[in-house]
């Protein structure tokens, strides 16, 4: 009994710990000696299992009740584990755990970087992909549901809505979604689009416009939101974000949850800014294609910027459609690049005048014929 290392053996019959010596013998067998007896446990045997912690190795063998061997000799543990690894009995988990154990903080940072990267790039890409795969009827259903909840609280001017409808249709803004335009009596300098096609323009913003090009720019901007399915994409991104974050955080601390929530808000805000710039750009391209001077967008943005300075009522518009000097500059740059449209503009002046009129007056036949 002079070869092998010390180990404690439990025979599975009694609780008495037995002194034993253990060694690994070729070919692939563990030899356990105890009280003059000698057992051979083949390493490749199905009843052979082992687990290790930082400084103990537990080897179990046989059927229930199993015999258990506890070894604490570091050299033996190392060579045994290496041997088992060599015979291919180490799983993905052990490899990963080994990596994590060798440098927990470094491993954590690596995982964190991977997660952040997938959150910033992979997730939005996948979410948008899914959004674009969804049929357009989904947009319509979402929009109708939203419209149904708000229609009673809006004071719609149906006569002017009809006129705006003609104005919008003349521009042919959205080939895939039939757009429905609404004029609502409200002081706010605001307008918005619902997914699927409802576009609402407040009289507050209409009254501040000087040229039909500005209104065309507004409708082109909102029409782009509808045509490019911005709401649905945003919704899918937020949903994906939410699921991702709740998966990561799970039952972690409330602090982490709060931090993550704010990170998400900031990201959504910057995404929605990106969408606004997108809507400006695509809107201007559409205007240009229909023969409307894209300079109208610049005028509209400048008008809104002045409003924002003058009156607090414009704050709401500001918060959802941030009007930065950058956005105006970008529109100016694009207007110069697009130049004067080659095609002639559809007749819009008459409709625009009718919309601007303070009192409701029916659109005359002359205007229609213009």
């Amino acid at each position, binding site marked *: 009994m002079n070869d092998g290392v010390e180990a*404690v053996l*439990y*025979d*599975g*019959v*009694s*609780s*008495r*710990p037995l002194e034993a010596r253990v060694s690994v013998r070729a070919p692939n067998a563990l030899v356990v000696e105890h009280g003059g007896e000698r057992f051979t446990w083949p390493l490749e045997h199905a009843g052979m299992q082992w*687990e290790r*912690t*930082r400084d*103990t190795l*537990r080897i179990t063998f046989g059927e*229930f*009740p*199993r*015999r*258990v061997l*506890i070894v604490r000799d570091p050299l033996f543990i190392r060579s045994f584990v290496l041997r088992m690894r060599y015979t291919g009995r180490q799983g993905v*988990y052990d490899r*990963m*755990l080994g990596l*994590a*154990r060798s440098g*927990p903080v470094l*491993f*954590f940072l690596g*995982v964190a970087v991977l997660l952040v990267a997938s959150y910033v790039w992979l997730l939005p890409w996948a979410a948008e992909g899914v959004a674009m795969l969804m049929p357009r009827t989904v947009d319509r259903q979402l929009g109708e549901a939203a419209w149904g909840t708000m229609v009673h609280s809006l004071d719609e001017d149906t006569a002017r809505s009809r006129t705006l409808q003609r104005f919008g249709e003349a521009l042919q803004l959205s080939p895939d979604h039939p757009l429905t335009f609404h004029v609502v009596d409200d002081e706010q300098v605001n307008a918005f689009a619902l997914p699927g096609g409802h576009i609402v323009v407040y009289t507050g913003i209409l009254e501040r416009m000087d040229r039909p090009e500005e209104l065309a720019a507004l409708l082109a901007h909102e029409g782009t939101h509808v045509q490019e399915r911005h709401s649905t994409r945003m919704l899918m991104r937020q949903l994906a974000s939410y699921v991702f974050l709740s*998966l*990561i955080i*799970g039952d*972690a*601390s409330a*602090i*982490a949850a709060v*931090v993550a929530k704010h990170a998400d808000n900031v990201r959504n805000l910057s995404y929605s800014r990106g969408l606004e710039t997108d809507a400006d750009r695509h809107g201007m391209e559409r205007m240009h294609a229909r023969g409307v001077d894209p300079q109208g967008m610049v005028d509209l943005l400048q008008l809104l910027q002045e409003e924002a300075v003058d009156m607090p009522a414009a704050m709401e518009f500001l918060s959802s459609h941030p009007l930065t000097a950058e956005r105006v500059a970008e529109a100016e740059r694009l207007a110069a690049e697009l130049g004067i449209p080659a095609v002639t503009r559809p007749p819009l002046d008459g409709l625009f005048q009718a919309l601007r009129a303070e009192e409701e007056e029916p659109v005359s036949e002359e205007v229609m014929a213009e």
Partner: protein
Amino acid sequence: MELLTPQRRLAFKGQGGDLFAVLIVNWLLTMVTLGLYYPWAKVRRLKYYYEHTELDGHPFHFHGTGREMFIGFIKAVGLLALLYGAFFGLAMLQEAWASVLGFLVLFGGLLLLLPLIIHGTYRYRMSRSSWRGIHFGYRGDRNELYRICLRDGLLTLVTLGIYGSWFTINLRNYVMSHVRWGSSQFAYKGDGLDFFLMNLKGYFLTLFTLGIYGFWWQKDMFHYYVDHLSWNFTDGKRLQFKGTATGGGFFGLMITNVLLVIFTLGIGYAWAEVRTMRYILANITLVGDADLNNVAQTEQEHKGALAEELGDLMDIGIFL
């Protein structure tokens, strides 16, 4: 010279960095598999705790597998989905009687499941635990457990919760006294009135001292759970469990743990967990001259993990 009262000690040998590695790999895999890895993660975590818990220098061992837990997990999710499905389905009818029936189905169902969960959790967990190669076991009777739960549950309801203390202790007395390790047997002898008075005192003093007494209440609770537990052997000898924790000790432990977790944005959780385990196990002593070497293997192999998962999903922390 012979020691008058031999003592045996429990100890936790885990380290924060190692537990952190286990937890982070668990977290990563659970996330990547959209939560499906959860049962396996739970096994990994339990194994870490067992393997690093030593009594008298010998480590414990958890034999459960992710597969067993996964099957239990699926059944548990299915059962709960059925109950909640019935509840929401009835609520959808938007009729008064349907809502009432829904509540009855949900809460009645959960209440009827409770003894089943406790029974199954103990059976599974004990059969999957071993020390020195000898398996633990739970030999309680399910019908007896139902009887206790129904009787005490009703009394608790009638007394507006006051009887809850007696309920807790009766349940504990029954369950812990049917836990065995091979041929030896555990016994828990608590008294509902003592437990009630202790909690009453703890509650009001904590209120009057603006929460500071809470740590001493915690200590009392810890002692109540530990000091009434004993371990009896076939030769008539026994080991008595004794808690040595102090209110000041709990105070220091919890304050530092909270700071540790907050200032590391949660990363320090593993280290805090290790500190808690160390403190708790270091403060449980077993006093007596019983011979731990003469215990024979008696329990059979047991299968099934449904209750373990149900207990986990419903957050019933019945373990020390």
